Protein backbone atom coordinates (compact mmCIF):
# COMPACT_ATOMS: atom_id res chain seq x y z
CA UNK A 1 0.00 0.00 0.00
CA UNK A 2 2.72 2.48 0.97
CA UNK A 3 4.59 1.44 -2.12
CA UNK A 4 1.63 2.21 -4.33
CA UNK A 5 1.25 5.59 -2.63
CA UNK A 6 4.88 6.33 -3.44
CA UNK A 7 4.33 5.36 -7.06
CA UNK A 8 1.22 7.53 -7.09
CA UNK A 9 3.14 10.68 -6.22
CA UNK A 10 4.02 11.28 -9.83
CA UNK A 11 1.33 9.42 -11.64
CA UNK A 12 2.18 10.49 -15.18
CA UNK A 13 5.86 9.79 -14.82
CA UNK A 14 5.31 6.41 -13.18
CA UNK A 15 2.75 5.46 -15.81
CA UNK A 16 5.09 6.38 -18.66
CA UNK A 17 7.90 4.38 -17.10
CA UNK A 18 5.64 1.39 -16.62
CA UNK A 19 4.55 1.72 -20.25
CA UNK A 20 8.19 1.74 -21.33
CA UNK A 21 8.71 -1.60 -19.61
CA UNK A 22 5.36 -2.78 -20.96
CA UNK A 23 6.48 -2.27 -24.54
CA UNK A 24 9.71 -4.13 -23.92
CA UNK A 25 7.99 -7.07 -22.26
CA UNK A 26 5.28 -7.04 -24.87
CA UNK A 27 7.95 -7.41 -27.55
CA UNK A 28 9.67 -10.11 -25.53
CA UNK A 29 6.42 -12.05 -25.11
CA UNK A 30 5.36 -11.76 -28.76
CA UNK A 31 8.77 -12.48 -30.27
CA UNK A 32 9.51 -15.07 -27.63
CA UNK A 33 6.25 -16.85 -28.49
CA UNK A 34 7.19 -16.79 -32.14
CA UNK A 35 10.60 -18.22 -31.31
CA UNK A 36 8.91 -20.86 -29.13
CA UNK A 37 6.70 -21.93 -31.99
CA UNK A 38 9.67 -22.23 -34.34
CA UNK A 39 11.65 -24.06 -31.69
CA UNK A 40 8.92 -26.55 -31.03
CA UNK A 41 8.55 -27.21 -34.74
CA UNK A 42 12.28 -27.79 -34.91
CA UNK A 43 12.37 -29.83 -31.72
CA UNK A 44 9.46 -31.91 -32.99
CA UNK A 45 11.27 -32.40 -36.28
CA UNK A 46 14.44 -33.25 -34.47
CA UNK A 47 12.62 -35.84 -32.40
CA UNK A 48 10.80 -37.07 -35.48
CA UNK A 49 14.00 -37.63 -37.46
CA UNK A 50 16.01 -38.90 -34.51
CA UNK A 51 17.14 -42.54 -34.51
CA UNK A 52 16.18 -43.27 -38.08
CA UNK A 53 17.13 -42.51 -41.65
CA UNK A 54 14.65 -40.92 -43.99
CA UNK A 55 15.32 -41.56 -47.67
CA UNK A 56 13.92 -39.72 -50.64
CA UNK A 57 14.91 -39.19 -54.26
CA UNK A 58 17.93 -37.00 -54.64
CA UNK A 59 17.12 -33.38 -55.26
CA UNK A 60 13.79 -33.51 -53.44
CA UNK A 61 13.48 -31.79 -50.13
CA UNK A 62 12.28 -33.39 -46.90
CA UNK A 63 10.69 -36.54 -48.22
CA UNK A 64 8.40 -35.46 -51.03
CA UNK A 65 9.00 -34.93 -54.69
CA UNK A 66 10.42 -37.33 -57.25
CA UNK A 67 9.22 -40.93 -57.34
CA UNK A 68 11.33 -43.85 -56.18
CA UNK A 69 10.85 -47.47 -57.16
CA UNK A 70 9.46 -49.61 -54.37
CA UNK A 71 12.08 -52.25 -55.24
CA UNK A 72 14.81 -50.01 -53.79
CA UNK A 73 13.51 -51.12 -50.39
CA UNK A 74 15.02 -54.57 -50.94
CA UNK A 75 18.44 -53.11 -51.75
CA UNK A 76 18.34 -50.92 -48.64
CA UNK A 77 17.15 -53.75 -46.41
CA UNK A 78 20.28 -55.73 -47.28
CA UNK A 79 22.63 -52.97 -46.02
CA UNK A 80 24.49 -53.44 -42.71
CA UNK A 81 22.64 -52.28 -39.61
CA UNK A 82 19.25 -51.90 -41.28
CA UNK A 83 16.41 -53.40 -39.29
CA UNK A 84 13.14 -52.26 -40.88
CA UNK A 85 12.46 -50.40 -44.13
CA UNK A 86 9.07 -48.73 -44.39
CA UNK A 87 8.09 -47.48 -47.86
CA UNK A 88 5.86 -44.45 -47.93
CA UNK A 89 4.54 -41.59 -49.98
CA UNK A 90 4.44 -37.94 -48.98
CA UNK A 91 2.93 -35.14 -50.96
CA UNK A 92 1.61 -31.65 -50.44
CA UNK A 93 -2.08 -31.63 -49.75
CA UNK A 94 -2.66 -29.18 -52.60
CA UNK A 95 -0.40 -27.75 -55.27
CA UNK A 96 -1.50 -24.21 -54.55
CA UNK A 97 0.37 -24.24 -51.25
CA UNK A 98 3.93 -23.18 -51.70
CA UNK A 99 6.52 -23.41 -48.99
CA UNK A 100 6.28 -19.69 -48.30
CA UNK A 101 3.76 -19.76 -45.49
CA UNK A 102 4.93 -19.81 -41.89
CA UNK A 103 4.74 -23.11 -40.15
CA UNK A 104 4.48 -26.55 -41.63
CA UNK A 105 2.93 -27.19 -45.06
CA UNK A 106 -0.11 -29.45 -45.09
CA UNK A 107 0.83 -32.93 -46.22
CA UNK A 108 -0.69 -36.26 -47.15
CA UNK A 109 1.33 -39.21 -45.93
CA UNK A 110 0.69 -42.79 -47.06
CA UNK A 111 2.11 -45.79 -45.23
CA UNK A 112 1.05 -49.34 -44.43
CA UNK A 113 -0.06 -49.16 -40.83
CA UNK A 114 2.25 -51.17 -38.58
CA UNK A 115 4.91 -51.56 -41.28
CA UNK A 116 7.43 -50.09 -38.86
CA UNK A 117 6.93 -53.18 -36.66
CA UNK A 118 6.61 -51.03 -33.58
CA UNK A 119 9.84 -49.16 -34.20
CA UNK A 120 8.34 -45.70 -34.53
CA UNK A 121 8.77 -43.94 -31.19
CA UNK A 122 7.29 -40.55 -32.03
CA UNK A 123 4.32 -40.27 -29.69
CA UNK A 124 0.91 -40.04 -31.34
CA UNK A 125 -2.21 -39.72 -29.24
CA UNK A 126 -5.72 -39.84 -30.64
CA UNK A 127 -8.14 -37.08 -29.73
CA UNK A 128 -10.94 -39.17 -31.18
CA UNK A 129 -11.45 -42.22 -33.37
CA UNK A 130 -8.80 -44.85 -34.02
CA UNK A 131 -5.47 -45.45 -35.72
CA UNK A 132 -5.20 -46.93 -39.20
CA UNK A 133 -4.63 -50.67 -39.33
CA UNK A 134 -3.20 -52.96 -42.05
CA UNK A 135 -6.83 -53.96 -42.75
CA UNK A 136 -7.48 -50.42 -44.01
CA UNK A 137 -5.23 -51.00 -47.04
CA UNK A 138 -7.23 -50.46 -50.18
CA UNK A 139 -9.89 -48.36 -48.45
CA UNK A 140 -10.18 -44.57 -48.62
CA UNK A 141 -9.87 -43.81 -44.92
CA UNK A 142 -7.73 -41.24 -43.15
CA UNK A 143 -6.44 -40.06 -39.79
CA UNK A 144 -6.16 -36.26 -39.63
CA UNK A 145 -3.70 -34.08 -37.79
CA UNK A 146 -5.26 -31.65 -35.33
CA UNK A 147 -4.72 -28.51 -37.43
CA UNK A 148 -6.26 -30.05 -40.55
CA UNK A 149 -9.26 -31.32 -38.62
CA UNK A 150 -9.81 -27.90 -37.10
CA UNK A 151 -9.33 -26.03 -40.36
CA UNK A 152 -11.82 -28.23 -42.21
CA UNK A 153 -14.09 -28.47 -39.18
CA UNK A 154 -14.05 -32.22 -39.55
CA UNK A 155 -15.02 -34.93 -37.06
CA UNK A 156 -14.63 -38.68 -37.03
CA UNK A 157 -17.21 -40.12 -39.45
CA UNK A 158 -17.09 -37.09 -41.77
CA UNK A 159 -15.75 -37.28 -45.30
CA UNK A 160 -12.87 -35.09 -46.44
CA UNK A 161 -11.67 -34.49 -49.99
CA UNK A 162 -7.98 -35.24 -50.43
CA UNK A 163 -6.56 -34.49 -53.87
CA UNK A 164 -9.98 -34.90 -55.38
CA UNK A 165 -10.90 -38.20 -53.71
CA UNK A 166 -13.29 -38.58 -50.77
CA UNK A 167 -11.80 -40.12 -47.63
CA UNK A 168 -13.65 -41.23 -44.50
CA UNK A 169 -12.15 -39.73 -41.35
CA UNK A 170 -11.61 -42.55 -38.82
CA UNK A 171 -9.35 -40.78 -36.34
CA UNK A 172 -8.09 -37.34 -35.29
CA UNK A 173 -4.73 -36.81 -33.58
CA UNK A 174 -3.99 -34.74 -30.52
CA UNK A 175 -1.86 -31.68 -31.26
CA UNK A 176 1.87 -32.49 -31.34
CA UNK A 177 3.00 -28.95 -32.23
CA UNK A 178 4.93 -30.37 -35.18
CA UNK A 179 4.53 -32.12 -38.57
CA UNK A 180 1.71 -34.58 -37.73
CA UNK A 181 -0.61 -31.65 -36.91
CA UNK A 182 -0.68 -30.68 -40.57
CA UNK A 183 -0.66 -34.22 -41.98
CA UNK A 184 -3.46 -36.44 -43.25
CA UNK A 185 -2.41 -40.08 -42.89
CA UNK A 186 -3.83 -42.52 -45.45
CA UNK A 187 -3.21 -46.21 -46.28
CA UNK A 188 -0.26 -46.80 -48.59
CA UNK A 189 -2.23 -47.92 -51.65
CA UNK A 190 -4.47 -44.86 -51.58
CA UNK A 191 -1.41 -42.69 -50.98
CA UNK A 192 0.39 -44.20 -53.94
CA UNK A 193 -2.58 -43.54 -56.21
CA UNK A 194 -2.86 -39.92 -55.08
CA UNK A 195 0.90 -39.49 -55.31
CA UNK A 196 1.19 -40.66 -58.91
CA UNK A 197 -1.69 -38.32 -59.68
CA UNK A 198 0.41 -35.37 -58.49
CA UNK A 199 3.21 -36.14 -60.92
CA UNK A 200 3.42 -34.64 -64.42
CA UNK A 201 1.29 -36.72 -66.79
CA UNK A 202 4.27 -37.89 -68.90
CA UNK A 203 6.08 -39.19 -65.84
CA UNK A 204 2.94 -40.68 -64.33
CA UNK A 205 2.15 -42.62 -67.52
CA UNK A 206 5.37 -44.60 -67.11
CA UNK A 207 4.68 -45.57 -63.50
CA UNK A 208 2.65 -48.26 -61.79
CA UNK A 209 1.24 -46.70 -58.62
CA UNK A 210 1.59 -50.02 -56.80
CA UNK A 211 5.39 -50.02 -57.19
CA UNK A 212 5.95 -46.28 -56.75
CA UNK A 213 6.74 -44.52 -53.53
CA UNK A 214 8.36 -41.17 -52.63
CA UNK A 215 10.75 -42.50 -50.04
CA UNK A 216 11.54 -44.85 -47.18
CA UNK A 217 11.88 -44.65 -43.47
CA UNK A 218 14.71 -46.86 -42.23
CA UNK A 219 14.94 -48.03 -38.63
CA UNK A 220 18.44 -49.21 -37.68
CA UNK A 221 19.17 -52.38 -35.72
CA UNK A 222 19.88 -51.91 -32.03
CA UNK A 223 23.28 -50.29 -31.65
CA UNK A 224 23.63 -49.40 -35.35
CA UNK A 225 24.52 -45.80 -36.15
CA UNK A 226 22.02 -44.00 -38.42
CA UNK A 227 24.90 -41.94 -39.81
CA UNK A 228 26.72 -45.09 -40.94
CA UNK A 229 23.59 -46.36 -42.68
CA UNK A 230 23.17 -43.00 -44.40
CA UNK A 231 26.76 -43.27 -45.69
CA UNK A 232 26.09 -46.80 -46.97
CA UNK A 233 23.00 -45.57 -48.83
CA UNK A 234 24.92 -42.70 -50.38
CA UNK A 235 27.51 -45.19 -51.63
CA UNK A 236 25.11 -47.92 -52.76
CA UNK A 237 22.34 -45.78 -54.27
CA UNK A 238 23.57 -42.41 -55.57
CA UNK A 239 20.06 -41.53 -56.74
CA UNK A 240 18.76 -41.53 -53.15
CA UNK A 241 19.18 -38.85 -50.54
CA UNK A 242 19.30 -40.09 -46.93
CA UNK A 243 18.61 -37.74 -44.04
CA UNK A 244 19.31 -38.39 -40.36
CA UNK A 245 18.38 -36.53 -37.18
CA UNK A 246 21.83 -34.98 -37.19
CA UNK A 247 21.37 -33.68 -40.74
CA UNK A 248 18.05 -32.18 -39.74
CA UNK A 249 19.56 -30.46 -36.71
CA UNK A 250 22.46 -28.99 -38.66
CA UNK A 251 20.31 -27.79 -41.57
CA UNK A 252 17.28 -26.49 -39.76
CA UNK A 253 18.60 -26.00 -36.23
CA UNK A 254 21.32 -23.51 -37.12
CA UNK A 255 18.97 -21.45 -39.28
CA UNK A 256 16.40 -21.24 -36.54
CA UNK A 257 18.88 -20.38 -33.84
CA UNK A 258 19.89 -17.29 -35.85
CA UNK A 259 16.26 -16.35 -36.26
CA UNK A 260 15.71 -16.90 -32.55
CA UNK A 261 18.56 -14.66 -31.55
CA UNK A 262 17.33 -11.90 -33.85
CA UNK A 263 13.84 -12.09 -32.37
CA UNK A 264 15.02 -12.18 -28.77
CA UNK A 265 17.62 -9.49 -29.55
CA UNK A 266 14.94 -7.07 -30.72
CA UNK A 267 12.99 -7.67 -27.55
CA UNK A 268 16.07 -7.20 -25.35
CA UNK A 269 16.92 -3.88 -27.01
CA UNK A 270 13.46 -2.55 -26.25
CA UNK A 271 13.86 -3.79 -22.68
CA UNK A 272 17.21 -2.03 -22.31
CA UNK A 273 15.45 1.20 -23.26
CA UNK A 274 12.73 0.45 -20.71
CA UNK A 275 15.38 -0.29 -18.07
CA UNK A 276 17.09 3.05 -18.68
CA UNK A 277 13.80 4.83 -18.23
CA UNK A 278 13.35 3.09 -14.87
CA UNK A 279 16.81 4.33 -13.82
CA UNK A 280 15.82 7.83 -14.89
CA UNK A 281 12.53 7.68 -13.03
CA UNK A 282 14.10 6.37 -9.86
CA UNK A 283 16.94 8.91 -10.00
CA UNK A 284 14.41 11.74 -10.28
CA UNK A 285 12.26 10.26 -7.61
CA UNK A 286 15.26 10.00 -5.27
CA UNK A 287 16.19 13.62 -5.97
CA UNK A 288 12.64 14.73 -5.17
CA UNK A 289 12.66 12.74 -1.98
CA UNK A 290 16.07 13.85 -0.77
CA UNK A 291 14.60 15.53 2.30
CA UNK A 292 12.42 12.59 3.11
CA UNK A 293 15.41 10.27 2.86
CA UNK A 294 17.25 12.66 5.19
CA UNK A 295 14.41 12.41 7.73
CA UNK A 296 14.39 8.64 7.55
CA UNK A 297 18.15 8.43 7.97
CA UNK A 298 18.09 10.92 10.86
CA UNK A 299 15.42 9.10 12.85
CA UNK A 300 17.29 5.84 12.52
CA UNK A 301 16.50 4.34 9.12
CA UNK A 302 19.54 2.29 8.16
CA UNK A 303 21.16 2.54 4.76
CA UNK A 304 20.01 -0.96 3.86
CA UNK A 305 16.42 -0.03 4.68
CA UNK A 306 16.56 2.97 2.37
CA UNK A 307 18.03 0.87 -0.43
CA UNK A 308 15.44 -1.83 0.15
CA UNK A 309 12.51 0.60 0.06
CA UNK A 310 13.64 2.20 -3.18
CA UNK A 311 14.63 -1.04 -4.87
CA UNK A 312 11.28 -2.60 -3.95
CA UNK A 313 9.58 0.40 -5.49
CA UNK A 314 11.49 0.14 -8.76
CA UNK A 315 11.01 -3.63 -8.81
CA UNK A 316 7.27 -2.97 -8.51
CA UNK A 317 7.47 -0.64 -11.52
CA UNK A 318 9.22 -3.43 -13.39
CA UNK A 319 6.68 -5.99 -12.24
CA UNK A 320 3.68 -3.85 -13.22
CA UNK A 321 5.23 -3.12 -16.61
CA UNK A 322 6.01 -6.80 -17.08
CA UNK A 323 2.54 -7.96 -16.07
CA UNK A 324 0.90 -5.41 -18.38
CA UNK A 325 3.27 -6.31 -21.22
CA UNK A 326 2.53 -9.98 -20.69
CA UNK A 327 -1.22 -9.35 -20.70
CA UNK A 328 -1.07 -7.31 -23.91
CA UNK A 329 1.35 -9.75 -25.53
CA UNK A 330 -0.79 -12.73 -24.56
CA UNK A 331 -3.86 -10.95 -25.94
CA UNK A 332 -2.15 -10.31 -29.28
CA UNK A 333 -0.79 -13.84 -29.49
CA UNK A 334 -4.21 -15.32 -28.77
CA UNK A 335 -6.02 -13.09 -31.26
CA UNK A 336 -3.52 -13.72 -34.06
CA UNK A 337 -3.43 -17.46 -33.38
CA UNK A 338 -7.22 -17.66 -33.42
CA UNK A 339 -7.34 -15.69 -36.65
CA UNK A 340 -4.63 -17.83 -38.23
CA UNK A 341 -6.05 -21.14 -37.04
CA UNK A 342 -8.68 -21.13 -39.77
CA UNK A 343 -5.93 -21.18 -42.39
CA UNK A 344 -3.85 -23.60 -40.37
CA UNK A 345 -1.18 -21.02 -39.58
CA UNK A 346 -0.49 -20.91 -35.87
CA UNK A 347 2.28 -18.37 -35.54
CA UNK A 348 2.85 -18.16 -31.82
CA UNK A 349 3.26 -20.45 -28.89
CA UNK A 350 3.16 -18.67 -25.53
CA UNK A 351 4.50 -21.05 -22.91
CA UNK A 352 4.26 -20.71 -19.14
CA UNK A 353 8.06 -20.50 -19.14
CA UNK A 354 8.08 -17.51 -21.47
CA UNK A 355 5.36 -15.77 -19.46
CA UNK A 356 7.14 -16.35 -16.16
CA UNK A 357 10.54 -15.38 -17.55
CA UNK A 358 9.15 -12.16 -19.01
CA UNK A 359 7.64 -10.99 -15.72
CA UNK A 360 10.55 -12.22 -13.59
CA UNK A 361 12.98 -10.53 -15.96
CA UNK A 362 11.16 -7.20 -15.91
CA UNK A 363 10.93 -7.30 -12.10
CA UNK A 364 14.62 -8.01 -11.85
CA UNK A 365 15.37 -5.31 -14.41
CA UNK A 366 13.33 -2.83 -12.37
CA UNK A 367 15.17 -3.79 -9.18
CA UNK A 368 18.58 -3.49 -10.82
CA UNK A 369 17.68 -0.16 -12.42
CA UNK A 370 16.59 1.16 -9.02
CA UNK A 371 19.70 -0.06 -7.27
CA UNK A 372 22.04 2.70 -8.45
CA UNK A 373 19.83 5.65 -7.42
CA UNK A 374 18.93 3.80 -4.20
CA UNK A 375 22.56 3.33 -3.19
CA UNK A 376 23.18 6.99 -3.99
CA UNK A 377 20.24 7.95 -1.75
CA UNK A 378 21.42 5.76 1.11
CA UNK A 379 24.86 7.38 1.03
CA UNK A 380 23.46 10.89 1.38
CA UNK A 381 24.50 12.73 4.50
CA UNK A 382 21.28 12.96 6.56
CA UNK A 383 21.93 16.55 7.65
CA UNK A 384 22.61 17.75 4.11
CA UNK A 385 19.59 15.84 2.86
CA UNK A 386 17.39 17.43 5.54
CA UNK A 387 18.37 20.91 4.37
CA UNK A 388 17.77 20.06 0.71
CA UNK A 389 15.16 22.29 -0.88
Amino acid at each position, binding site marked *: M*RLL*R*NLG*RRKVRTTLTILGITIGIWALVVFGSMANKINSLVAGGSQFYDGKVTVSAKGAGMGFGSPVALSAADRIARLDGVDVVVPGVSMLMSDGMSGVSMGMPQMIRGEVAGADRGRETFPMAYASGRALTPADEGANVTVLGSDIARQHDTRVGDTIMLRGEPFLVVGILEPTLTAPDTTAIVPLAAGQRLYVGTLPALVAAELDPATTVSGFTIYPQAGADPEAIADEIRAAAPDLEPMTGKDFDSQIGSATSILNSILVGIALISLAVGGLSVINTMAMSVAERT*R*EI*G*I*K*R*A*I*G*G*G*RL*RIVRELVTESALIGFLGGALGLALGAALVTVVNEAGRASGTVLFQLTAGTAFTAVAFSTLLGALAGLMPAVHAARL*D*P*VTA*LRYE
Partner: protein
Amino acid sequence: MTSTTLLEGRNLRKTYRLGRRTTVEALRGVDVRIQHGEMVAIMGPSGSGKSTLMHILGLLHAPDLNHGPRPELSFGGQDMVTLGEGERTKIRARQMGFVFQDFNLVPTLTAIENVMLACDYAGMPSSAAKSMAVEALGLVGLADRADHRPAELSGGEQQRVAIARALVNKPSLILADEPTGNLDSERSAEVLGLLRSFNREHGQTFILVTHDPEVAEACDRVVRMRDGRIRDQSLAALAQPMDQASRAAVA
Protein backbone atom coordinates in the same frame (compact mmCIF):
# COMPACT_ATOMS: atom_id res chain seq x y z
CA MET B 1 17.38 16.78 38.68
CA THR B 2 19.63 13.75 38.85
CA SER B 3 23.33 14.27 38.67
CA THR B 4 24.41 11.36 36.50
CA THR B 5 25.90 12.22 33.13
CA LEU B 6 24.01 11.09 30.04
CA LEU B 7 26.07 12.72 27.36
CA GLU B 8 29.56 14.09 27.51
CA GLY B 9 31.73 15.56 24.78
CA ARG B 10 35.28 16.86 24.89
CA ASN B 11 37.40 18.54 22.24
CA LEU B 12 34.56 18.42 19.74
CA ARG B 13 35.67 19.96 16.47
CA LYS B 14 34.03 20.03 13.08
CA THR B 15 35.30 21.59 9.90
CA TYR B 16 33.09 21.51 6.83
CA ARG B 17 34.52 21.67 3.38
CA LEU B 18 32.35 23.88 1.22
CA GLY B 19 34.46 24.06 -1.90
CA ARG B 20 37.90 23.01 -3.02
CA ARG B 21 39.58 25.71 -0.93
CA THR B 22 36.79 26.98 1.29
CA THR B 23 36.31 25.37 4.65
CA VAL B 24 34.19 26.42 7.58
CA GLU B 25 35.29 25.73 11.11
CA ALA B 26 31.88 25.15 12.62
CA LEU B 27 33.11 23.83 15.96
CA ARG B 28 36.47 24.83 17.31
CA GLY B 29 36.81 22.64 20.37
CA VAL B 30 33.75 22.25 22.53
CA ASP B 31 33.42 20.54 25.90
CA VAL B 32 29.87 19.84 26.95
CA ARG B 33 28.13 17.67 29.52
CA ILE B 34 24.43 16.90 29.63
CA GLN B 35 22.92 15.35 32.75
CA HIS B 36 20.15 12.78 32.83
CA GLY B 37 16.75 14.46 32.87
CA GLU B 38 18.06 17.88 31.94
CA MET B 39 16.35 20.17 29.48
CA VAL B 40 19.09 22.20 27.83
CA ALA B 41 18.80 24.97 25.26
CA ILE B 42 21.64 25.68 22.87
CA MET B 43 21.53 29.31 21.75
CA GLY B 44 23.63 31.48 19.57
CA PRO B 45 23.60 33.53 16.38
CA SER B 46 23.52 31.71 13.06
CA GLY B 47 26.90 30.31 12.17
CA SER B 48 27.81 29.95 15.84
CA GLY B 49 27.94 26.16 15.55
CA LYS B 50 24.85 25.32 17.59
CA SER B 51 23.30 23.08 14.94
CA THR B 52 26.65 21.40 14.30
CA LEU B 53 26.93 20.67 18.00
CA MET B 54 23.46 19.17 18.00
CA HIS B 55 24.29 17.01 14.96
CA ILE B 56 27.36 15.66 16.70
CA LEU B 57 25.56 15.06 20.00
CA GLY B 58 22.75 13.38 18.02
CA LEU B 59 25.26 11.16 16.20
CA LEU B 60 24.23 12.55 12.82
CA HIS B 61 27.80 13.65 12.27
CA ALA B 62 31.03 12.45 13.81
CA PRO B 63 33.51 14.93 15.32
CA ASP B 64 36.74 15.51 13.37
CA LEU B 65 39.54 13.17 14.30
CA ASN B 66 42.24 14.52 12.03
CA HIS B 67 43.26 17.68 13.88
CA GLY B 68 43.51 19.01 17.39
CA PRO B 69 43.32 16.96 20.57
CA ARG B 70 41.49 13.64 20.25
CA PRO B 71 37.74 14.19 20.70
CA GLU B 72 35.74 12.20 23.20
CA LEU B 73 32.02 11.58 23.06
CA SER B 74 30.15 9.26 25.36
CA PHE B 75 26.44 8.56 25.49
CA GLY B 76 25.08 6.54 28.40
CA GLY B 77 28.64 5.67 29.32
CA GLN B 78 29.40 4.23 25.89
CA ASP B 79 32.09 5.62 23.59
CA MET B 80 30.57 7.05 20.42
CA VAL B 81 33.66 8.26 18.59
CA THR B 82 34.74 4.88 17.30
CA LEU B 83 31.28 3.72 16.23
CA GLY B 84 30.57 3.10 12.57
CA GLU B 85 27.66 4.62 10.67
CA GLY B 86 25.50 1.51 11.09
CA GLU B 87 25.87 1.45 14.87
CA ARG B 88 25.25 5.18 15.17
CA THR B 89 22.09 4.74 13.09
CA LYS B 90 20.94 1.99 15.43
CA ILE B 91 21.49 4.18 18.51
CA ARG B 92 19.64 7.07 16.83
CA ALA B 93 16.75 4.71 16.13
CA ARG B 94 16.51 3.16 19.60
CA GLN B 95 17.76 5.68 22.11
CA MET B 96 17.24 9.10 20.56
CA GLY B 97 14.36 11.11 19.20
CA PHE B 98 14.58 13.99 16.73
CA VAL B 99 12.34 16.99 16.14
CA PHE B 100 13.17 19.43 13.35
CA GLN B 101 12.16 22.97 12.52
CA ASP B 102 10.32 22.08 9.30
CA PHE B 103 8.27 19.32 11.00
CA ASN B 104 9.79 16.89 8.49
CA LEU B 105 7.15 14.24 8.21
CA VAL B 106 7.04 11.78 5.34
CA PRO B 107 4.32 13.29 3.13
CA THR B 108 2.89 10.03 1.78
CA LEU B 109 2.40 8.51 5.20
CA THR B 110 -0.45 9.24 7.59
CA ALA B 111 0.26 10.65 11.05
CA ILE B 112 0.21 7.23 12.67
CA GLU B 113 2.37 5.70 9.92
CA ASN B 114 4.92 8.46 10.43
CA VAL B 115 5.06 7.62 14.12
CA MET B 116 5.19 3.89 13.42
CA LEU B 117 8.15 4.43 11.10
CA ALA B 118 10.29 5.26 14.14
CA CYS B 119 9.12 2.05 15.88
CA ASP B 120 9.88 0.11 12.74
CA TYR B 121 13.43 1.50 12.57
CA ALA B 122 13.88 0.64 16.25
CA GLY B 123 13.05 -2.97 15.40
CA MET B 124 9.66 -3.14 17.04
CA PRO B 125 7.12 -5.67 15.68
CA SER B 126 4.30 -3.89 13.87
CA SER B 127 1.52 -4.92 16.27
CA ALA B 128 3.35 -3.38 19.23
CA ALA B 129 4.29 -0.39 17.08
CA LYS B 130 0.65 0.30 16.33
CA SER B 131 -0.43 0.50 19.96
CA MET B 132 2.69 2.51 20.90
CA ALA B 133 1.99 4.95 18.07
CA VAL B 134 -1.66 5.32 19.11
CA GLU B 135 -0.50 6.02 22.66
CA ALA B 136 2.13 8.55 21.53
CA LEU B 137 -0.38 10.40 19.35
CA GLY B 138 -2.76 10.41 22.30
CA LEU B 139 -0.10 12.02 24.49
CA VAL B 140 0.34 14.88 22.02
CA GLY B 141 -3.45 15.22 21.73
CA LEU B 142 -3.77 13.98 18.15
CA ALA B 143 -5.46 10.61 18.64
CA ASP B 144 -8.31 11.71 16.39
CA ARG B 145 -5.99 12.86 13.58
CA ALA B 146 -4.08 9.58 13.31
CA ASP B 147 -5.20 8.79 9.77
CA HIS B 148 -4.56 12.24 8.31
CA ARG B 149 -1.69 12.93 5.96
CA PRO B 150 0.72 15.76 6.89
CA ALA B 151 -0.79 18.00 4.20
CA GLU B 152 -4.14 17.74 5.99
CA LEU B 153 -2.68 18.90 9.31
CA SER B 154 -1.81 22.39 10.53
CA GLY B 155 1.81 23.32 11.28
CA GLY B 156 1.29 22.92 15.01
CA GLU B 157 -0.33 19.54 14.49
CA GLN B 158 2.47 18.39 12.20
CA GLN B 159 5.03 19.37 14.81
CA ARG B 160 3.11 17.45 17.45
CA VAL B 161 3.13 14.39 15.19
CA ALA B 162 6.90 14.85 14.86
CA ILE B 163 7.12 15.01 18.67
CA ALA B 164 5.06 11.83 18.96
CA ARG B 165 7.45 10.21 16.49
CA ALA B 166 10.45 11.38 18.55
CA LEU B 167 8.92 10.07 21.78
CA VAL B 168 7.33 6.82 20.68
CA ASN B 169 10.34 4.63 21.42
CA LYS B 170 10.69 6.25 24.87
CA PRO B 171 14.24 7.40 24.08
CA SER B 172 16.47 8.73 26.83
CA LEU B 173 17.49 11.74 24.73
CA ILE B 174 15.41 13.97 22.47
CA LEU B 175 17.13 16.49 20.23
CA ALA B 176 15.10 19.31 18.77
CA ASP B 177 16.41 21.76 16.17
CA GLU B 178 14.34 24.97 16.32
CA PRO B 179 11.20 22.99 17.21
CA THR B 180 9.10 26.16 17.43
CA GLY B 181 10.87 28.08 14.67
CA ASN B 182 8.00 27.85 12.21
CA LEU B 183 5.12 28.22 14.65
CA ASP B 184 3.21 31.24 15.91
CA SER B 185 3.61 32.13 19.57
CA GLU B 186 0.47 30.29 20.69
CA ARG B 187 1.47 27.03 18.94
CA SER B 188 5.03 27.58 20.19
CA ALA B 189 3.91 27.70 23.76
CA GLU B 190 1.80 24.59 23.22
CA VAL B 191 4.72 22.60 21.76
CA LEU B 192 7.11 23.86 24.39
CA GLY B 193 4.69 22.96 27.17
CA LEU B 194 4.43 19.48 25.69
CA LEU B 195 8.20 19.02 25.66
CA ARG B 196 8.51 20.35 29.17
CA SER B 197 5.83 17.98 30.46
CA PHE B 198 7.57 14.95 28.93
CA ASN B 199 10.79 16.13 30.52
CA ARG B 200 9.14 16.47 33.92
CA GLU B 201 6.90 13.43 33.85
CA HIS B 202 9.11 10.89 32.13
CA GLY B 203 12.53 12.23 33.07
CA GLN B 204 13.59 12.33 29.43
CA THR B 205 16.56 14.51 28.52
CA PHE B 206 16.00 17.27 25.97
CA ILE B 207 18.48 19.29 23.96
CA LEU B 208 16.84 22.19 22.12
CA VAL B 209 18.59 24.37 19.59
CA THR B 210 16.77 27.67 19.49
CA HIS B 211 16.82 31.36 18.68
CA ASP B 212 13.84 32.04 20.86
CA PRO B 213 14.59 33.46 24.33
CA GLU B 214 11.19 32.21 25.55
CA VAL B 215 12.17 28.67 24.67
CA ALA B 216 15.50 29.10 26.39
CA GLU B 217 13.77 30.48 29.43
CA ALA B 218 11.66 27.35 29.76
CA CYS B 219 14.81 25.20 29.92
CA ASP B 220 16.91 24.21 32.91
CA ARG B 221 20.12 25.45 31.37
CA VAL B 222 21.27 27.48 28.40
CA VAL B 223 24.45 26.77 26.45
CA ARG B 224 25.44 29.90 24.54
CA MET B 225 27.64 29.57 21.52
CA ARG B 226 29.58 31.98 19.39
CA ASP B 227 32.11 31.33 16.63
CA GLY B 228 32.22 27.60 17.17
CA ARG B 229 32.87 27.78 20.90
CA ILE B 230 30.73 27.70 24.02
CA ARG B 231 30.62 31.15 25.52
CA ASP B 232 28.91 30.22 28.71
CA GLN B 233 26.65 27.60 30.18
CA SER B 234 24.37 28.96 32.81
CA LEU B 235 21.23 27.97 34.59
CA ALA B 236 18.21 29.41 32.87
CA ALA B 237 17.35 31.48 35.91
CA LEU B 238 20.54 33.43 35.36
CA ALA B 239 20.19 33.52 31.60
CA GLN B 240 17.68 36.27 31.36
CA PRO B 241 19.46 39.03 33.36
CA MET B 242 22.76 38.16 31.73
CA ASP B 243 21.19 38.32 28.33
CA GLN B 244 19.80 41.75 29.14
CA ALA B 245 23.11 42.84 30.50
CA SER B 246 24.97 41.78 27.36
CA ARG B 247 22.37 43.49 25.16
CA ALA B 248 22.80 46.63 27.20
CA ALA B 249 26.56 46.37 26.76
CA VAL B 250 26.20 46.09 22.99
CA ALA B 251 23.83 49.04 22.91
